């Protein structure tokens, strides 16, 4: 790993740290401090948006582990979130404590994800994408027609979560809960990527035959990738369900899967930081469009009708433009900016 100018490592342990320099540590500390102070400054609406960003960060980083790092395309991630939401939701409804409910949601989703990951040994690329698409649609059908298990078209109603009697019943309280979960998920995926498993995933993505030749057990590692990724997706789904207080089948449609894929592509495939950027970008996009529409409504009253139709179009357009002009994603741009300032003013 290349450090800043003047930063030398004298031991492997020092080099392998997540944040190798004091400067980085202080910057992360500063960022966390800002995050902790934010909900006291922001109004409720803005806090709720940041809460959605936190949930999306967990979902995006889990999909990035599977698709960006391990190379297994999943078009069913939205449904995996749904599995987690319903499983955790059912636990909560039956009186299981919140942390245990979330854990159960994650584990059930991991199981479902691994079942749908089994074809990944035989299928690659496009075929796997289509198989996971089938998973998405089949699961959606189950959500809608699951009877008592999913509440069918009525959905499930949930109370706000509480831990040891402390209820997370306001946006600010949810904010800190979700922040903790998001930070935990990011740390977990960062560390998986630095471990033996992460290196095996990358080797499978880059060329599965060579990976097998150097001794990576493809089936096992692909299943692990599906399992860990779905576990985190299930946690994200469980949190989302508890946060909104209502779970319905429409929340977890194929559009959600696509927006998660969009997050990791816009943020940067295979990058933890990219997942954060992508989640922020995709969650903020409709909000910015709404704000824009409200401003424009003063000049052009009819525009509110068109915003709904335009929102999807803008989403598609952004996706296309990113793929054409910034295929490496925002994380790559961030690296370039950092490099620019590191070398400034001697750019060449």
């Amino acid at each position: 790993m290349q450090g800043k100018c003047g930063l030398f490592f004298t031991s492997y342990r020092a080099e392998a740290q997540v944040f190798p320099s004091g400067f980085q540590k202080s910057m992360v500390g500063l960022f966390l401090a800002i995050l902790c102070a934010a909900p006291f400054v922001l109004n409720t609406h803005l806090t709720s948006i940041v809460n959605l960003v936190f949930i999306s960060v967990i979902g995006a980083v889990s999909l990035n582990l599977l698709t960006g790092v391990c190379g297994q395309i999943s078009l069913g991630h939205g449904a995996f979130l749904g599995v987690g939401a319903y499983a955790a939701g059912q636990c909560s409804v039956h009186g299981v404590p919140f942390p245990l409910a979330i854990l159960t949601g994650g584990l059930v989703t991991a199981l479902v994800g691994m079942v749908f990951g089994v074809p990944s040994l035989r299928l690659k690329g496009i075929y796997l994408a289509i198989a996971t698409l089938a998973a998405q649609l089949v699961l959606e059908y189950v959500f809608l027609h699951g009877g008592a298990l999913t509440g069918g078209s009525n959905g499930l109603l949930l109370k706000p979560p509480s831990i040891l009697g402390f209820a997370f019943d306001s946006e600010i309280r949810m904010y800190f809960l979700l922040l903790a979960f998001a930070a935990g998920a990011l740390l977990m995926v960062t560390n998986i990527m630095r471990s033996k498993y992460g290196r095996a995933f990358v080797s499978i993505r880059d060329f599965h035959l060579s990976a097998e030749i150097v001794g990576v057990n493809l089936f096992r590692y692909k299943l692990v990738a599906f399992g860990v990724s779905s576990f985190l997706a299930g946690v994200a789904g469980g949190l989302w369900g508890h946060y909104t207080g209502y779970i319905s089948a429409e929340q977890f449609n194929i559009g959600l899967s696509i927006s998660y894929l969009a997050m990791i592509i816009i943020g940067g495939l295979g990058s933890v930081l990219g997942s954060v950027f992508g989640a922020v970008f995709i969650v903020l996009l409709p909000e910015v469009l709404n704000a824009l529409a409200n401003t424009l409504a003063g000049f052009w009253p009819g525009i509110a009708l068109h915003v709904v139709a335009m929102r999807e179009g803008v989403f598609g357009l952004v996706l296309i433009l990113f793929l054409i002009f910034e295929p490496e994603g925002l994380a790559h741009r961030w690296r370039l900016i950092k490099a620019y300032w590191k070398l400034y003013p001697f750019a060449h």
Partner: protein
Amino acid sequence: MEYYLQLIVNGLVVGSIYSLVALGFVVIYKATKVVNFAQGELVMAGAYVCFALTVQFHIPFVWAFLVTLVFSVLLGLVIERMVLRPLIGEEHISVIMVTVGMSSVLKSVVQLFWGTQIRVYPQVLPTEPVVIAGLPVAPVYIAAFILSALLFAVFSVFFKFSRMGVAMRATAFDQQAAQSMGIGIKNIFAMSWCIACVVSAVGGVILGNINGINAHIGHLGLKVFPAVILGGLDSLLGAALGGLIIGVLENVCDGAARQLLGLGGFREVAAFIVLVVILMIKPYGLFGTKEIERL
């Protein structure tokens, strides 16, 4: 018994439209190795353009249909040029996502112009049903089936005998070899997108004549995946058979689930359950080329 016969007939008609859309999908995949998630939206675009021309601009149906075909060719050229060409050589996921983005854009443009409510085509054919083997069948169904079959025949001849068709097959077989024999790959790519847009638009117009159209007609594009996987991703014959089989299968399964189990909406997933089974047993479909990998 008659209930199921009726289901099969309806399934064949819907299946013939799936076949057309699958044909477009296969032509693109064969030549360019692009999986087009916007195939359903191409159907929608064609259907709405024809609708606008006949209903809003009062152009006779036949002329409107021809203008729609011309529009589809242009749409194909624009899409290939603006969206797909910059992504040649990129990873699977990038190419898949660019077509997903394209489908969002097309959907949004249609909603912007025409809203989301159902629009009905003017009746072109007589509504009096024709009785075939004891079953009443609407003439529009028969026309739909014949038109699809005709298009398939035309394209089979095209790929077999025309210069362009042979060049397209050569490109599909081996891009580098084709290029070194003097075939312009870029023209082939553009051509395959044009064909895909045209057949999809025909499918859209037929569908509009049967059921009317709304902004969710693009959902049909998802049904193409089971059809092409069953037939084999790169086989024209497979697309034709796959479409028909999936059409019949989903109609019969839906009818059976409704009658025997009282389950609604099974139509949406029947094809995908079949898809998973096919992928497990025979991943390259009935007529698909097996991908052989070597180091």
